[in-house]
């Protein structure tokens, strides 16, 4: 019996406790300890990634199931497969970056209570680790909600001028989803007596789940109602249009390091939920309402890209762009759930789409958090200004800054050779044969993304230099070191995607089998 995953989750949690106990005065110590905890977590996550047996599609590093509250079907059951491990790794990479760049928040002495801030960041990380490793609904839900509370307070207490409403909106939206999700799972538990994701997936594959639900509630189509409840929970978190309206406000009002975490990893909780829970447990229901779901995915991709194009605030623009990128994941997942009877060798296409989806999750986490990291650096220099038209010609004064942020932007718009390309390419390669019309319309999204990101480069970095910014400082050595790892990973993954694909392939194959019946 090993306890690696428990220990991994405990590291940031206990680190948070220690940091919270430090008090207001010892700012540097708080930051140092938070960093140390997040680096220990990072090294743990990397070790786990190295030891992951890529030939197995099932759960590894499994702990339990041990009975926790047996009469309620609550068990302590942890484990990761390729998907879980990938998400743990992503969380472990993004958190130290966010902590490193948080120093500027407290530098001018306007904000205090840095110990609380760092503790909340670490607890958020613990919540994410827990979510990505738990295999029992109750246990998983505990962490799913646990991640929400630190996020709420990080936005509420350290955000921009409209932080109050933004945080409340974020919280209420997510709770609507969570309550719907909870009710759905209570119904499932009632009908089947199980909370275990793996058990439920096995029941779904044999068709026993829907039968059990219908037998227990003399209510036709109860399966669909339960599915919609669960769907809502994840759709708000990703988000899927039209459940997205909390996101631009929350992302732009949150301090940029927190936005890195929100977009980099918290949004992945939703996608992860789709992959781990919705696809394996409700394949029948997804198939029954496939066309509307595909429309939602297409709408998410296209409308969010158009909305991003219309933004004047850089953070809001990137926020909408985040929705757009995760839309590709949705498209891939829904297409992979289709029956696809008319397609030759549908398994291969489905595997490609899901491979692309997983890669896109990691890529987006990496790239979006890097972009918000750059936003944090811009805000630090501009004193909080971040309008599209507030800058201009920065290229001349800050060439290194321009170059590195340019790479991140190009990665975001999917330039071949950088990481974003491979993911989107695989998604489209898989989706085209499975759902041609959806894929075709979605390409508009790619096009619009290219347009608004290029506009961003043009307005901010090119053109005549705005006189106000002649003293705009370039990246310091420390800041360069901060962004180099992300940029390097963008190249590495762009050229050698096998680094991730190899590890998740067995998981994807297993998921595809689950979807074939």
């Amino acid at each position, binding site marked *: 019996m090993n306890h690696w995953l428990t220990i991994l989750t405990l590291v940031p949690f206990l680190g948070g406790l220690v940091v919270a106990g430090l008090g207001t005065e010892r700012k540097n110590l708080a930051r140092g300890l938070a960093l140390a905890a997040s680096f220990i977590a990072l090294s743990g996550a990397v070790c786990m990634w190295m030891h992951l047996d890529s030939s197995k599609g099932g759960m590894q590093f499994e702990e339990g199931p041990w009975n*926790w*509250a*047996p*009469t*309620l079907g*609550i068990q302590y059951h942890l484990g990761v497969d390729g998907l879980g491990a990938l998400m743990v790794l992503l969380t472990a990479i993004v958190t130290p970056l966010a902590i490193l760049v948080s120093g500027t928040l407290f530098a001018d002495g306007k904000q205090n209570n840095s110990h609380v801030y760092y503790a909340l960041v670490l607890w958020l990380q613990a919540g994410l680790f827990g979510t990505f490793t738990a295999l029992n609904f*109750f246990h998983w*839900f*505990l962490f799913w*909600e*646990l991640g929400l*509370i630190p996020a709420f307070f990080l936005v*509420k*207490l350290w955000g921009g001028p409209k*932080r*109050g409403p933004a945080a*409340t909106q974020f*919280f*209420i939206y997510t*709770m*609507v989803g969570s*309550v*719907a999700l*909870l*009710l759905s799972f*209570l*119904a499932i*538990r*009632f009908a089947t007596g199980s909370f275990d994701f793996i058990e439920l997936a096995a029941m779904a594959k044999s068709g026993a789940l829907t039968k059990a639900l219908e037998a*227990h*509630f003399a*209510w036709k189509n*109860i399966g669909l109602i339960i599915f919609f409840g669960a769907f809502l929970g994840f759709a708000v978190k990703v988000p899927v249009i039209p459940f997205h309206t909390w996101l631009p406000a929350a992302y732009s009002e949150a301090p940029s390091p927190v936005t890195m975490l929100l977009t980099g990893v918290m949004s992945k909780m939703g996608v992860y939920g789709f992959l781990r829970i919705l696809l394996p447990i409700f394949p029948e229901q997804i198939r029954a309402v496939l066309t509307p779901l595909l429309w939602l995915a297409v709408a998410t991709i296209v409308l969010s890209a158009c909305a991003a194009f219309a933004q004047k605030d850089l953070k809001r623009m990137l926020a909408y762009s985040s929705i757009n990128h995760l839309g590709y994941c949705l498209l891939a997942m829904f297409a992979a759930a289709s029956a696809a009877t008319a397609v030759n060798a549908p398994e291969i296409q489905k595997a490609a789409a899901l491979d692309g989806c997983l890669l896109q999750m990691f890529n987006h986490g990496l790239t979006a958090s890097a972009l918000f990291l750059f936003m944090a650096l811009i805000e630090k220099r501009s004193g909080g200004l971040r309008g599209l038209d507030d800058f201009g010609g920065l290229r001349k004064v800050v060439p290194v800054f321009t170059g590195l942020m340019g790479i991140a932007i190009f990665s975001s718009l999917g330039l071949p050779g950088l990481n974003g390309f491979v993911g989107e390419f695989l998604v489209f390669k898989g989706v085209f044969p499975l759902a041609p019309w959806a894929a075709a319309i979605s390409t508009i999204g790619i096009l619009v993304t290219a347009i608004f990101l290029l506009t961003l480069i043009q307005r901010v970095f090119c053109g005549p230099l705005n006189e106000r910014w002649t003293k705009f400082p370039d990246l310091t050595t420390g800041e360069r070191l901060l962004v180099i790892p992300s940029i390097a990973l963008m190249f590495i993954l762009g050229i050698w995607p096998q680094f991730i694909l190899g590890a998740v392939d067995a998981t994807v194959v297993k998921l595809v089998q689950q979807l074939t019946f």
Partner: protein
Amino acid sequence: MLAWTIYITFLGVLVLMLLPRDNARAARIVALLTAIAGCVVAFVGAIQQTNPGEVTTIVKTDWIPAIGANYYLAADGISLVLVVLTGLAAVSGILFSWNIEKRTKEFFAFYLALIGGVYGVFLSFDLLLLFVFYELTIIPKYFLIARWGSTRKEYGAMKLALYSFVGSHLVLIGLIAAWVVAKGQLGHASLDLIELSKVHFSAGFQHWVFPLVFVGFAILAGMWPFHTWAPTGHVAAPTAGSMLLAGVVMKLGAYGCLRVAMVMFPEGMREWQWAIAALAVAGIVYGAGVALVQRDFKFVIGYSSVSHMGFVLLGLATLNTIGLDGAVLQMFSHGIIAGLLFGVVGRMVYDRTHTRDFNDLETMQLGKLIPFAGVTFVIAGVASMGLPGFSGFVAEFQVLMGAWSVFPKLTILSGVGILIGVAYTLRAIQKGFYSDAQPKPVDHDHPMEPISVAERFGAVMLIGASLVIGLFPGLLMNWIEPCFNSPLSMFARLLVKGGSQ
């Protein structure tokens, strides 16, 4: 052993009466020691009870043989849970009223009398005895509110007392009718609950008597639409009074519904099951909705109590094991959490700021002035929303799971109540502690009194209890579950013909 909870508490009342009038300090200490002793006895007694699924007799002697009344104290798992809750609530309530200066000794004497009565109700297995203890709690409640309360205290006290009396009269009428019928069947007079739980009352009789008894008890549990005493009473009461009202007194009502009304008249319960569930859900949603628009901080918590007690009633109405388990756990959980919320609002905030109006509190930035209160309220609020990790979650979780099987549509509706619950809690956190409104200049001549050690102890104790049960629900479930699962238990008749499971 457990009977000593009652005796010790009333002994404390006696000692307090003998103390000199002006020695407030001694009164506090005596009260605290009494409550701690009661709490310890409750814990030890509960742990000693080896078989929580069965009713274990503590003492049984003749009392009034002519009407079949015995002095009969006993306990099963459900009593244990509630007795432990009472112990915890009693100690924390005293810690949160350490600052009472006005007639301290009398305050604590009434306080302990109330606690003693509550212990008595939870341990009585004789109807007359139970009823006596039940009535006994009304008097100290009235005086605690009318003398030490605030904001329309006479009105609140009178309303509470009248509602309680009306409720107990309904109960009394129903029970007398039942006693007469049972005497005819058994051939001898009996008020023994266990004996009565085996008597079969005719369907027509149950159809009419059950609602009398159930509603009579449910009034005290804050069942909509008979809940209006609760918010007014909670608001008018002194801090410890609100903590006890929400923490244990409302549980008396729910306990009576379960232990007396449902056990004696199972068929009546099945007939009225739908109506009760509908009223429960109405209470959940209505209480939450009204809490959302209050300007008075204490009214928010008062209405939230109505909403949370709705879950207890919904759990009772499911008539399946899991729902009933959840209902009993929710009684415990709400007792702890509501006590804590009232402690923060009444003691930490109101006693320092002398206002509970959100418009005033918004300008004070209490989150910065008394950060401990802010953090405590956030934790209590999160627990009250039913976030996992706290006791409220496991309890509501089971209630909803049980309810799914019987009333799927009402269950979905109660989800709306949970959501509004999140909204009003966030609103209270925001307006009460972390508002962005323009702050009023801080009065440096009258700095805010720092949070005292007693308050810290009280808060930590309650938060700890909620967390422990949230993470290890098995601790209490091991007591509750056997009561409903065992085919020999007094609840067996209620569940067997339920048809739902």
